[in-house]
């Protein structure tokens, strides 16, 4: 069979229809799509993301279907007439297209209210990309011309109006929403829910006026809109107006062609989505089923599937509308689903309201309180994803538990039945998602979305999709994705290899090649660490790398609870000269720092402010100290005991070896911090077996233990090799650490790494002592490069004025201390004031004074 299909309208429903046709049809088809916008079909539901920085290009729906030879898209050439007798469509350009099947997918037009001034310059509707482009341009122009924020007024307080108001706020404009009825979102919410929503919207800096009926838009001297006049006589000043008062189905072609239409608008269709002409279907917002048109995408998609099936000879039917909606305004949670207004006879409702935290939830139940009929969720819509699929089915538990705040009580997540619809935009059931994991090999939520379209449209079901996918993978005994984060699908180990092999040396280059987006607080530090190992000659804060570091690495100090930092100079092996101690004491005294001996055998000075760090370090560097890397995922300390030099039992020079090792591995970046210990005899005073590498002297030489850990999950290090001489010990340690650095997961210390390693300690021994992988030379070379490339980060920073700029406390007041700091005395030193102590007499330091009296 060969069929000529003409689709009028190139919007969302049309796109879905063509997508399904080209996917399902094996026959010869000729599909012609006529659009009156000068662009490919785009995601209208996501229109507001345009103001979040997404471009028109980003919003375009997948365009591959237009590459199919069976499909022709005529952009910017609207249909102007249908001849049902000749079965042709004529377009504005005069082209005539003959059809076997005609599909109307013309959507709706945004209505302008019938009031004076509704067409004035500066008044906008909110429907198409062209509208939001115009709106943004106008706001920018007004912002440039005014010396105050632009005032925007939105007429209409429904879903669209609130989205538009959010978009105005995103452009730094003021926003006032005028709603003619007594509450926001009156089509979805009842009065109490609307009142809670109003407070949430106002908290976002959006002004709301209810019972505000617009009677005219007034022009200013330049002819553009200047104010909105209300029926009660009030005049609201406006630099621009967005009209979101409803839509009208674009049924004019159908009417002219004599198709049966609803009085209030919309082309009548039956359950087969066929109009009064059997050759003509209608789908999407223009179609009126059961006397009603609906402005949601999900029913349009469902109709598209029905029409596709019918054209291909099937007998699918459209079963009616699901009116569930969720507001996509970031930070405001609102959802309404099923029979939210309890119109079913005998329906009961259960309501939970917490006006203080702005939460209102209502569930509508059947008269026996067993079946869920619908609900409204305001302020916390986290239950939307799990409740909506249950509509029409048994709730399975006391309804109250679904309404309590997250965390309170144990809201059961009943195992969803396979037929429950999880994604209503694309009508995807729980069973389809499970099938995608089980039979189609999808291994994460993103793949399931690509494969089933669940979650691809409004996104409100993504949490539910993800939890189904995870649950299903777990049932299959499959590991859940090891990707670092949403920006990288690679694990740390894979990424290390990828960077190593590609030779790339900047974050931008790596993410462009192996990832996506701009990175985050998870992947950026991981990459900083990888680059630091692979390119040890570069300063960790060189160029773009500086932006990868969290504040500790960025300012080379440890952040404390009040926003000040601690300073830890390196004292290799725990050794420090009297002069060194005196310098440390003087610095601590002069800057008023709290001083403490750490668990790592060195001195920590707390309470240093950002702008003080270079001053403090200048004094420390001048006295011969260097960075102790207490802030880095890198070598911390090599703990030592005093050993054979002084101790009457010591058999080898444990302190000397500890100093050698600390100087060798200082500054080496790793997946997590690592520590060593060296004891001079089996009494183990350095607690070496609690460290990532523990070295214990014996009469035969050094014994090396690896994979120890203190901390949350203590583990004693295991014996790797015995009786080593100095050089063999160092070579073995070099390979052990480099192998760990290359292969461990992010934030994995050596203890869990060793436990997960193939073959455990024997496997490790084979790799680094017997060179079973042929890696040893590579590992040795990498460590040699680190040792040669080491330079003190603090000395280099002090010598570079550009790097010092980051220590300015404020960009407009470079040396002013954070006025929010407050310290109190304790045991002769300072500590941060607790909230209840602030403002009391005991507060010593509110930023500017340094002196602490004993």
């Amino acid at each position, binding site marked *: 069979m060969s069929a000529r299909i003409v689709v009028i309208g190139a919007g969302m429903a049309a796109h879905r229809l063509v997508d399904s046709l080209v996917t399902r049809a094996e026959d010869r088809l000729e599909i012609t799509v006529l659009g009156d916008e000068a662009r490919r079909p785009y995601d209208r539901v996501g229109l507001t*993301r345009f103001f*979040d920085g997404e471009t028109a290009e980003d919003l375009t729906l997948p365009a591959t279907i237009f590459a199919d030879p069976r499909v022709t898209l005529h952009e910017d050439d609207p249909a102007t007439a249908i001849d049902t007798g000749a079965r042709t469509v004529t377009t504005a350009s005069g082209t005539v297209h003959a059809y076997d099947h005609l599909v109307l997918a013309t959507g709706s037009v945004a209505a302008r209210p019938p009031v004076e001034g509704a067409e004035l310059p500066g008044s906008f509707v909110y429907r198409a990309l062209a509208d939001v482009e115009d709106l943004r341009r106008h706001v920018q122009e007004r912002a*440039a011309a005014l*010396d105050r924020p632009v005032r925007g007024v939105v007429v209409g307080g429904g879903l669209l109006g609130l989205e538009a108001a959010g978009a105005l706020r*995103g452009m730094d404009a003021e926003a006032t929403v005028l709603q003619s009825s007594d509450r926001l979102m009156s089509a979805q919410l009842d009065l109490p829910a609307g009142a809670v929503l109003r407070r949430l919207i106002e908290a976002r800096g959006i002004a709301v006026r209810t019972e505000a009926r617009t009677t005219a838009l007034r022009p200013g001297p330049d002819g553009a809109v200047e104010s909105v006049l209300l029926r009660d006589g009030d005049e609201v000043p406006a630099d621009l107006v967005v009209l979101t008062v409803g839509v009208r189905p674009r049924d004019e072609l159908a009417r002219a062609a004599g198709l049966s239409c609803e009085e209030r608008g919309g082309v009548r269709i039956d359950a087969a989505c066929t109009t009064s002409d059997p050759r003509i279907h209608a789908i999407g917002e223009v179609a009126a089923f059961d006397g009603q048109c609906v402005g949601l995408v999900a029913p349009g998609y469902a109709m598209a599937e029905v029409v596709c099936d019918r054209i291909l000879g099937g007998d699918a039917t459209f079963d009616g509308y699901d009116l569930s909606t969720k507001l996509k305004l970031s930070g405001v949670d609102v959802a309404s689903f099923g029979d939210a207004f309890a119109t079913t006879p005998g329906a009961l409702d259960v309501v939970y309201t917490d006006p203080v*935290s702005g939460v209102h939830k209502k569930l509508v139940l059947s008269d026996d309180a067993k079946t869920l009929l619908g609900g409204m969720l305001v302020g916390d819509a986290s239950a939307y994803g799990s409740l909506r699929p249950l509509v029409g089915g048994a709730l399975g538990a006391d309804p109250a538990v679904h309404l309590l705040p997250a965390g309170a009580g144990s809201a059961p997540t009943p195992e969803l039945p396979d037929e429950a619809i999880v994604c209503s935009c694309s009508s995807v059931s729980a069973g389809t998602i499970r099938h995608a994991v089980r039979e189609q090999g999808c291994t994460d939520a993103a793949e399931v979305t690509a494969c089933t379209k669940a979650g691809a449209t409004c996104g409100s079901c993504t949490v539910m999709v993800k939890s189904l996918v995870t649950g299903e993978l777990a049932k299959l005994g499959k590991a859940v994705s090891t990707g670092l984060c949403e*920006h990288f699908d690679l694990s740390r180990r894979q990424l290390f290899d990828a960077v190593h092999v590609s030779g790339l040396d900047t974050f931008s280059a790596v993410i462009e090649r192996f990832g996506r987006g701009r990175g985050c*607080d998870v992947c950026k530090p991981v990459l900083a660490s990888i680059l630091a190992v692979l390119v040890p000659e570069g300063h960790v804060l060189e160029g773009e790398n500086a932006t990868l570091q*969290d504040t500790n690495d960025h300012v080379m100090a440890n952040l404390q609870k009040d926003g000040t930092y601690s300073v830890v100079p390196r004292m290799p092996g725990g050794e420090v000269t009297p002069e060194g101690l005196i310098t440390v004491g003087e610095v601590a005294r002069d800057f008023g720092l709290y001083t403490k001996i750490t668990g790592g055998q060195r001195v920590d000075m707390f309470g240093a402010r950002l702008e003080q760090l270079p001053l403090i370090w200048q004094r420390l560097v001048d006295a011969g100290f260097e960075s102790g890397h207490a802030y880095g995922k890198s070598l911390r300390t090599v703990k030592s005991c005093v050993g054979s030099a002084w101790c009457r039992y010591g058999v080898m020079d444990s302190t000397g070896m500890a100093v050698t090792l600390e100087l060798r591995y200082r500054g080496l970046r790793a997946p997590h911090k690592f520590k060593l210990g060296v004891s001079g005899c089996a009494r183990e005073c350095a607690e070496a077996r609690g460290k990532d590498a523990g070295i214990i002297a014996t009469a035969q030489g050094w014994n090396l233990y690896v994979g120890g850990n203190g901390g949350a999950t203590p583990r004693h290090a295991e014996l790797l090799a015995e009786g080593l001489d100095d050089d063999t010990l160092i070579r073995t340690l070099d390979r052990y650490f480099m192998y760990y650095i290359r292969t461990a997961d992010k934030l994995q210390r050596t203890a869990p790494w060793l436990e997960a390693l193939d073959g455990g300690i024997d496997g490790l021994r084979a790799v680094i002592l017997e060179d079973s992988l042929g890696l040893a030379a590579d590992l040795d070379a990498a460590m040699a490069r680190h040792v040669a490339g080491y330079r003190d980060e603090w000395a280099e920073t002090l010598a570079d004025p550009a790097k010092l700029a980051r220590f300015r406390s404020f*960009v407009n007041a470079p040396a002013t201390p954070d006025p929010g700091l407050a310290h109190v005395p304790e045991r002769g030193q300072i500590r941060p004031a607790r909230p209840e102590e602030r403002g009391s007499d005991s507060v010593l330091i509110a930023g500017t004074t340094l002196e602490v009296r004993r």
Partner: protein
Amino acid sequence: MTTTLTTPTLAPQLAANWERLCPLADLEVERGRAALLGDEQVALFLLPGGDVRAVDNHDPYSGANVISRGIVGSRGGRPTVASPMYKQVFDLRSGTCVDTRGKEVRRLRVWPVRTLEGDLYVLRGGAR
């Protein structure tokens, strides 16, 4: 959103509501800077496309003034900053916390920003 003003004569008028902070050139891409406005602190961020965003420097979860020192990144296409203290992640456009680390949602105030002749201004008092 940064609006570039073209009429230099507006400068004196700007002074009424807008506070000049620093040359735009003082900001580094994707590295925050704090600015002081009387008793209040603003965290400024220059994004890769040249957009400047300003939010509270005060971290509502830890109570410390540290937001300017967090890692800048993106979540699902939105520019974000992660507090360096307890790692909550905030949307730089709306100030909303998008990863609360199990805490209740709190938000940062957003401060309107504009540039004029290479200088950066914020609206006093932030967004109302």
